[in-house]
């Protein structure tokens, strides 16, 4: 019973959103609708479907890039000795201190010069950059918690540092990789500022941009916005539920002795 207020607090807005998405547009001002409808979903159309696809591409691309770079860098920071190790780690963390809005115009110029403005790759690169510190942080602490002797054993068994990473450390790091993947995926799935600033072609918009631009000059299509939000939320909710256990395991890895 004590849980009820908590549930209402967290799930209430979501339930309201779902309800609104099935609410017939003309009846929005009433206390309760006469009947529910899927018209809002039907009305989303192919432009929105395109946005969902774009978002999937961008989020998946960002996650892949971020993990590939993050995991190997984190392994190096955690287990290898090299000059500038703390500089690399500190530098990556410093990136996360920049407010994104301050970087919009310089990034715009950079992307335009690189010919990546108004492309999905032009979103993936900055997203991965901004998500990298978190990934690096999570994976570094995970790798640090794996015993040094494991690395030494692999080296004595004939592995190069890279082979030790691929054959010994990667197979052990699924919980941490899953955690990082989810967090990066959610970040890029939700990102609005860069997507709004760097993308101009309508067919290349991502979900947050598409939703933000639903509103016409005189009308706010609340029903459709709600339907779009539900479509945007459901995959995340399932992804998170599915990986829930692993996420907790990944976030608290090594916090307590087994």
């Amino acid at each position: 019973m004590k849980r009820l207020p908590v549930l209402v607090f967290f799930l209430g807005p979501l339930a309201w959103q779902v309800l609104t998405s099935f609410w017939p547009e003309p009846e929005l001002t009433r206390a309760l609708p006469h009947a529910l409808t899927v018209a809002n979903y039907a009305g989303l159309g192919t432009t929105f479907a395109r946005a969902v696809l774009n978002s999937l591409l961008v989020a998946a691309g960002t996650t892949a890039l971020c993990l590939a770079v993050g995991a190997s860098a984190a392994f190096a920071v955690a287990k290898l000795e090299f000059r500038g190790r703390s500089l690399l780690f500190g530098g990556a963390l410093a990136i996360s201190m920049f407010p994104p809005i301050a970087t919009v115009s310089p990034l715009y110029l950079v992307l335009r010069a690189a010919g990546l403005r108004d492309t999905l790759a032009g979103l993936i690169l900055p997203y991965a950059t901004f998500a990298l510190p978190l990934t690096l942080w999570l994976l570094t602490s995970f790798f640090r918690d794996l015993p040094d002797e494991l690395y030494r054993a692999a080296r004595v068994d004939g592995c190069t540092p890279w082979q030790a990473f691929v054959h010994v450390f990667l197979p052990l790091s699924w919980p941490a990789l899953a955690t990082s993947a989810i967090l990066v995926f959610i970040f890029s799935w939700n990102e609005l500022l860069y997507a709004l600033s760097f993308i101009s072609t309508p067919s290349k918009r991502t979900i947050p941009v598409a939703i933000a631009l639903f509103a016409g000059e005189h009308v706010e299509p609340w029903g459709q916005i709600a339907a779009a939000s539900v479509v945007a939320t459901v995959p995340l909710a399932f992804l998170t539920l599915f990986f829930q256990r692993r996420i907790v395991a990944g976030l608290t890895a090594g916090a307590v002795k087994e």
Partner: protein
Amino acid sequence: MASVSLDRVRKAFPGAPDAVHELSLEIADGEFVSLVGPSGCGKSTTLNLIAGLDQPTSGSIRIDGKPVEGLEPGERDIAMVFQSYALYPHKDVRGNLAFPLEVARLERSEIDKRIAETAELLGISKLLSRKPRELSGGQRQRVALGRALVRKPRVYLLDEPLSNLDAGLRAQMRAELRRLHQKLRATFIYVTHDQAEAMTLSDRIALLRAGELQQTGTPREIYQRPANRFVAEFFGTPRINVVPARVLGLEGDDLVGIRPEQIELLSERASGVLEATVEEAEMTGAELWVTLSLGGESMVARAPSDFAAHPGGRVWIRFPADRVLRFEQSGRTLSQTRL
């Protein structure tokens, strides 16, 4: 098989005194040498330097007469067993044993043959499809040993391999290690902080203290002719008694050492004995460890378990004069002059 030689090897970590200081050590082909010393004295560091997991700050290391500088750990033909065993948690026992051979790209048939041999030798054939977490401590230990054995290396490096086992298992594994060494006739370099383990296993012992070599020698040499007071006190249970010479009725201001088993306890006065008071008597089963008070100093003597000693009681002691060790005033070096 190969010899290992260290020539004035030094390892300094930033901002700390030398972890290993100018260490020179010759280990013969097929020898079983223990590196002993208290925790933090540089034993593991030395092993890591030989393995190539760390690079010496100065000095050189040779394996089989050839300098190994610049060789990767995998190229040195050494195998190492770690204190934590460091088994690969995601691989089963077979996978753990196969890994070094797979990295070396051996033929599958050869790999299978070696795994079977090694598993047979160590009695782990039935465990091949288990994961490390499904094994007991003793079984993990065997697998760790097996992962070293499959490679048939020239030199084995063992870093406190038995310290995580309980006492019974440790004694059993000790015997097994000795048997293994006799069978393989490979060079073993064995690290332990346990003096008794070093004594029972080794052909030769090297004792380190704060990165500095104190003495090398056979267990007998080290026990009977320790180079200094630290060595004398490190080996033997109970510890050697170190007291001012006058307490034992000897000339000089030096400190002298006498091992507990060299002190003979008498319940009656006789000629040439010293009188002492019993402080405490500790029954260990086979014998009695008697703490004595003598001239204001405490000493321990070992007596047969039926010896009658009661706290506060009076006893007499006698000892062979040629078994007394005399330490120089600094307490550091020992004069070998017999009394």
